[in-house]
C-alpha cells in the first residue's frame, strides 16, 4: 500500500478526463490529434506502472486486482495505438470533407471520455458505479457512430442506441436484484454494492434471487458483448462509424462488457447453492460462434465482415470462460488479448484501405497486394492471424480452447471446431478476392501510419511463437482467481 499506487490509479482516470476537457476547447486538427496521442500514451504508462506495483486495499468505489490490471493494460495500450492510427485517419477525412473541424473537436473529446468511462468500468469496485461507467461508454460511442450523419450512420446509431439502452436497462435491473439479494446479509447502504464485500459473503445470499439477477446481467451486458441473438447493433455500428471507433469497439468495449459479465460470474460461483453460470455462457458463446461463422459468407461490406468476425471471437471467448477451470480460463484470457490486438490491427488496415479505394464494398476492392503492398500484406497477415492459422497467437489460444474442451466434453468440442472451420473458410475466401487477383478500385498512394498496424501484428506473431514465462504465470494466476 503506497501513495504511488493510488497516484497511478488516479492518473489512469484523470488523464483522459482532463484531456477530454482540453480537447473540447482546443481548435485545430494538428494540435488536437497530437494531444490525443499524448494523453493516451500517458494513460498507458500509468496503467503499466499499475501492473508492476503491489495492489492497494480496495476502497468502496475503486479496486485494482490481478484480474483487472490485465484489462486496464490492454485497454490503454490499444487506446494508445488507435489514437496514433486515428491521427492519420482523421487527417484524410478532414481533407475530403467527411468531417468538419467542429465535429473533429467533438470526436477527440468523445474519444477521451470513452477511454475514461472504460477505465472507470474496469477499476470499479461498486456494481452501481460499474453500471454508470458502461452506460457512459455506450452513450459516447452512440454519438461517435452517428458522427458522419449519413442515412446509414444515423440508422446504425439509432439501432445501437435502442438496443444498447435495452441491454443497459436489463443490466441495471440485474444490479438492483443483486443488491436486494445482498441487503439481508450485509445490511442496507453502500456496502451491499461493493463487489469485494459481495463476493466474500455471497455464500449466504438467496440463490434463487441471484439466479434471476444473473440472467438479467448476462442478457444486459451480453448485449454489449455482442452475443447472438442480441448482436444486431454491432455490425451496423462497426460499419458506419469512423474506423478508429470500430477498432476501439471491437478491441476494447466488447472486452469491458465481458469483464462485467466475468465479475458477476465470479459472484455466482462464490454462492455454491446458486445456478452454475457456465452452461448459460457456453450456450450463448457457441450459438454466437456458429451463427456469426455462417453470416460471414454473405457480407459485401468489408467492415461489416470483420464486425461479424468479432461476434464470432467474442463467442469463442465467452465459451471458454463458460467452460471454466484453469486451462479454459487461461485460453479465454489469451484469446481475448490476441483478438483485441489482431482485430484492432485489422481495422487499422481496413480504415486506410477504405480511404484509398473510396469504398467499403468488397466487390470493388481487389488486388491490394499489387496496388498497395504494405497495406495489402498487412491485411493478409491480420486475416491469417484472425482465421487462426499457425504460428500466430490466435492459433495458440484457439488450440488451447479446443483441446481443453475435447478433454471434458467432446461433443461441444465438435460443434466448436465446426464453427471455427466455417469461419476460417469464409475469411480466406474473401481475403483472396480482396488481396490478390485483378486490381480493382483506386490506386492512389497512401499517407498511412503503418506503425500501429505492424506493432499489433508483431505482438501477435511474437505471442504465437514465444510467450514470456512471466506472462504465463500471470495469466495462470488470474485463471485460478476466475475459478
Amino acid at each position, binding site marked *: 500500500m503506497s501513495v504511488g499506487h493510488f497516484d497511478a490509479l488516479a492518473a489512469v482516470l484523470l488523464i483522459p478526463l482532463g484531456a477530454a476537457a482540453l480537447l473540447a476547447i482546443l481548435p485545430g486538427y494538428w494540435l488536437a490529434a497530437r494531444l490525443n496521442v499524448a494523453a493516451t500514451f500517458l494513460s498507458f504508462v500509468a496503467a503499466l506502472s499499475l501492473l508492476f506495483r503491489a495492489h492497494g486495499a480496495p476502497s468502496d468505489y475503486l479496486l485494482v486486482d490481478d484480474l483487472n490490471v490485465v484489462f486496464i493494460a490492454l485497454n490503454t495500450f490499444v487506446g494508445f495505438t488507435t489514437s496514433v492510427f486515428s491521427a492519420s485517419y482523421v487527417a484524410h477525412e478532414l481533407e475530403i470533407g467527411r468531417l468538419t473541424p467542429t465535429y473533429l473537436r467533438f470526436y477527440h473529446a468523445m474519444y477521451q471520455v470513452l477511454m475514461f468511462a472504460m477505465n472507470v468500468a474496469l477499476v470499479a469496485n461498486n456494481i452501481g458505479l460499474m453500471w454508470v461507467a458502461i452506460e457512459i461508454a455506450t452513450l459516447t460511442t452512440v454519438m461517435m457512430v452517428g458522427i458522419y450523419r449519413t442515412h446509414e450512420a444515423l440508422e446504425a446509431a439509432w439501432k445501437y*442506441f435502442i438496443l444498447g439502452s435495452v441491454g443497459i436497462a436489463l443490466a*441495471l435491473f440485474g444490479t*438492483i436484484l443483486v443488491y*436486494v439479494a445482498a*441487503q*439481508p446479509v450485509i445490511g442496507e*447502504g453502500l456496502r451491499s454494492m461493493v463487489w469485494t464485500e459481495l463476493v466474500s459473503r455471497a455464500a449466504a445470499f*438467496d440463490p434463487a434471487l441471484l439466479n*434471476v439477477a444473473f440472467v438479467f446481467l448476462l442478457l444486459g451486458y451480453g448485449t454489449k458483448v455482442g452475443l447472438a441473438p442480441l448482436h444486431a447493433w454491432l455490425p451496423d455500428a462497426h460499419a458506419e462509424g469512423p474506423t478508429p471507433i470500430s477498432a476501439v469497439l471491437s478491441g476494447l468495449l466488447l472486452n469491458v462488457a465481458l469483464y462485467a459479465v466475468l465479475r458477476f460470474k465470479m459472484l455466482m460461483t462464490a454462492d455454491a447453492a446458486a445456478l452454475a453460470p457456465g452452461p448459460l455462457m457456453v450456450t450463448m458463446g457457441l450459438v454466437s460462434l456458429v451463427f456469426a461463422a455462417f453470416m460471414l459468407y454473405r457480407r459485401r461490406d468489408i467492415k461489416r465482415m470483420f464486425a461479424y468476425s468479432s461476434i464470432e471471437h467474442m463467442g469463442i471467448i465467452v465459451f471458454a470462460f463458460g467452460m471454466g477451470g484453469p486451462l479454459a480460463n487461461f485460453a479465454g484470457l489469451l484469446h481475448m488479448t490476441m483478438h483485441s490486438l489482431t482485430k484492432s490491427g485489422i481495422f487499422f488496415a481496413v480504415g486506410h484501405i477504405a480511404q484509398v479505394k473510396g469504398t467499403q464494398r468488397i466487390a470493388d476492392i481487389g488486388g491490394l497486394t499489387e496496388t498497395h503492398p504494405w497495406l495489402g500484406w498487412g491485411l493478409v497477415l491480420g486475416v491469417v492471424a484472425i482465421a487462426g492459422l499457425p504460428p500466430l497467437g490466435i492459433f495458440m489460444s484457439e488450440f488451447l480452447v479446443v483441446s481443453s474442451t475435447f478433454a471434458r466434453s467432446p461433443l461441444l468440442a465438435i460443434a466448436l471446431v465446426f464453427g471455427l472451420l466455417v469461419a476460417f473458410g469464409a475469411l480466406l475466401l474473401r481475403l483472396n478476392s480482396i488481396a490478390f487477383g485483378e486490381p480493382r478500385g483506386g490506386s492512389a498512394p497512401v499517407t498511412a501510419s503503418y506503425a500501429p498496424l505492424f506493432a499489433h501484428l508483431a505482438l501477435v506473431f511474437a505471442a504465437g511463437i514465444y510467450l514470456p514465462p512471466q506472462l504465463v504465470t500471470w495469466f495462470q494466476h488470474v485463471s485460478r482467481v476466475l475459478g
Partner: protein
Amino acid sequence: MDRFFFDIADLLAGSLVLVSFMLLYQDRLYALLNVYALHAVVLALSVGWQAFIQHAPHLYVTAAIALGFKAILIPVALRRIVERLGIHREVETVGGTGPTMLAGMALVALSMVVMLRVTGGATPIAREDLAFALAVVLLGLLIMVTRRNAVSQVVGFMSLENGLVLAATGAKGMPLVVEISVAFSILIAFIVIGIFLFRIRERFDTVDVQALDQFRGERR
C-alpha cells in the same frame, strides 16, 4: 398501520402497471405523451410514498425529479418537437391492439410468477415492488418493439426507465448514487435523442423509423 402503508404502496405500484397498459393502446402521439406524463406522476407519488414509509428523505429528491423532469419537462419538449417537425400524429403499430394487450398481460403474469417466487427472502414490500417493476420494464420493452415511430419508441424507453426507478426505490436503503444516476441517464438519453431527432429531420423529413430501415447498410 403497517399493513395500510404497504397497501398504499402496492396500490401506487400497481397503478404504474395499469398506466403502462394505457400507453400500450394509444394511437395518437399527443395522447401518448399525455399518458406518459401521467405515468411519471404516478411514479413520483409512488416514490414519494416509499420515501415516507422508509423514512428515507433522499428519495423525495428522486420523486421531485420524476415529477418536474419526467412529468412536465420532457412531455412538453417532446410535444414541441412533434409540432415543429410536423410528425404524423398517428402512431403506427406493429400488429393489432388486441394481440399486443394479450402479450402485455402474459408479460405481467410472467413477472409476477418469476419475481414472487424468487424473492421469498426479501421484505414483503420489496417483493411486490420488484414484481410490479419488472412488469413495467417488460411492458416498456413491448411498447418499444410494437411501435415504429421514433418518438413513441422513446416514450417506451422512458416508461421502462420508470420501472427501473420503481425497482431501485423498492430495494430498501439502496444508495442514492444509483437513483441519481438513473435520473441522470435519462437526461443524457434525452439529449442524445433530441440531437438525433434533429439530425434525422435534416435528412429525411420524417421520424418514422421504418423509413430509416430502407437505408440498410447491406443494400448499397
